[in-house]
């Protein structure tokens, strides 16, 4: 009897507080759902944040939440979906101008530069749009990523903030006249002095080794012919020709690799610049 009594008391002490808690806090209420979604968003857990935001939107309508969902897709790199979500933000909404800029950003990040320019011309350039300068900056910047003809200097520069102008001028001039090395020049240089073409393409040690091998085998060939060792003379002579011709060819190829390298570095510089300027879009911190 005593045991049963103690058990009942014990069970009550466990179950009553739990019942009280569950009735006091509704974890699935819209407010808590949004709080949880915000928390996930700020923890960069975007996929689950989207899920929670969508759950929240079942009971209510909010442009701000739609905007966040679109941002979450954009952060995950799902640009197609993010564009669709940004399109959901109504024209009348305060967030509409930002959504348009974000659409441009998503088009930019997905590499759809032609679509970006079409979007700008259709939706922004002719309309009354407060953030037109930011949009024009991104529009102009897209020309640095493609081989399309650049706008005139005046048209290009006037879209940017004066603080960034020096950097922008450097980018523009680089794109206009990239400091590329010519394959033909590299080949001719190596034909005149073995290895010179490699040094021209910034490959000093390769150039030096090319010079040593070409000159070394030529000397061995000459020396063996001179000593009457004709087989060795032809053998080393053949190798000398091979290394010489290979170096002329390799110098021309090296110029192309050099050009690929500087273009790679240029694109990386552009991307770093854009990231540091948030693609010219005003930063909204949802996680204060």
């Amino acid at each position, binding site marked *: 009897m005593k045991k049963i009594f103690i058990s009942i008391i014990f069970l009550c002490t466990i179950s009553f507080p739990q019942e009280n808690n569950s009735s006091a806090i509704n974890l699935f209420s819209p407010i808590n759902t949004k709080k949880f979604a915000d928390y996930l968003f700020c923890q960069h857990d975007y996929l689950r944040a989207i899920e929670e935001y969508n759950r929240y939107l079942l009971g209510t309508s909010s442009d701000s939440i739609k905007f966040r969902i679109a941002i979450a897709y954009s952060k995950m790199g799902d640009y197609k979906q993010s564009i669709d979500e940004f399109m959901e933000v109504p024209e009348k909404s305060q967030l509409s101008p930002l959504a348009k800029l974000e659409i441009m950003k998503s088009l930019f990040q997905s590499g759809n530069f032609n679509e970006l320019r079409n979007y700008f011309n259709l939706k922004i350039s002719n309309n009354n749009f407060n953030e037109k300068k930011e949009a024009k900056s991104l529009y102009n910047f897209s020309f640095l990523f493609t081989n399309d003809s650049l706008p005139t200097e005046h048209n290009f520069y006037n879209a940017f903030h004066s603080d960034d102008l020096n950097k922008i001028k450097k980018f523009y001039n680089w794109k206009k006249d990239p400091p590329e090395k010519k394959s033909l020049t590299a080949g001719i240089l190596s034909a005149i002095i073995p290895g010179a073409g490699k040094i021209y393409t910034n*490959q000093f040690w390769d150039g030096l080794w090319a010079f040593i091998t070409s000159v070394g085998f030529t000397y061995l060939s000459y020396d063996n012919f001179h000593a009457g060792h004709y087989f060795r003379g032809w053998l080393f002579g053949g190798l000398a020709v091979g290394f010489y011709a*290979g*170096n002329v*060819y390799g110098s*021309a190829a090296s110029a*192309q690799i050099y050009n690929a390298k500087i*273009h790679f570095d240029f694109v990386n510089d552009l991307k770093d610049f854009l990231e540091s300027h948030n693609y010219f879009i005003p930063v909204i911190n949802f996680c204060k």
Partner: protein
Amino acid sequence: MKLFIIILLLPVINIFAQSDWIKWGKADYSYQIKNNFQHRDYSLNKKNYERFLLKSFADGYWLLISDVDGDNCSFNPTCSNFFLQSVEKTNIVQGSLMFFDRFTRDMDIFGKVGHYPRVSDGHFYDPPSLYLMNQDSIKYLPHSFVLKDE
């Protein structure tokens, strides 16, 4: 009765406890460097006379010299593989020129570090596609890049 249960339980506990060897047993880990050159493709293509001849020389070189010498080429693909791939992608003349250039670069003991990207096994990554004299075929990778599988 209690004694019977205890006797029944003890072996069960012992058996389960012993199964813990999976967790605590000595890891059978090999520190040996993987010798990829030992898994070479020695097959010959009899349909193509030029390729057959070239591959025969390469097979002979691998079997008698390279495999005995060990994994000494600092590049991936190795110079002999580079030659074969170059000829396959271009022709015998251009492939030979690419090979001579590669061989000169292989001799360069100072300029490789900080110039070529690496494969995860430490070799310098230098594919023939960079030297085809076709700007579009060049997929530039910075030297800090490490390829997982090649």
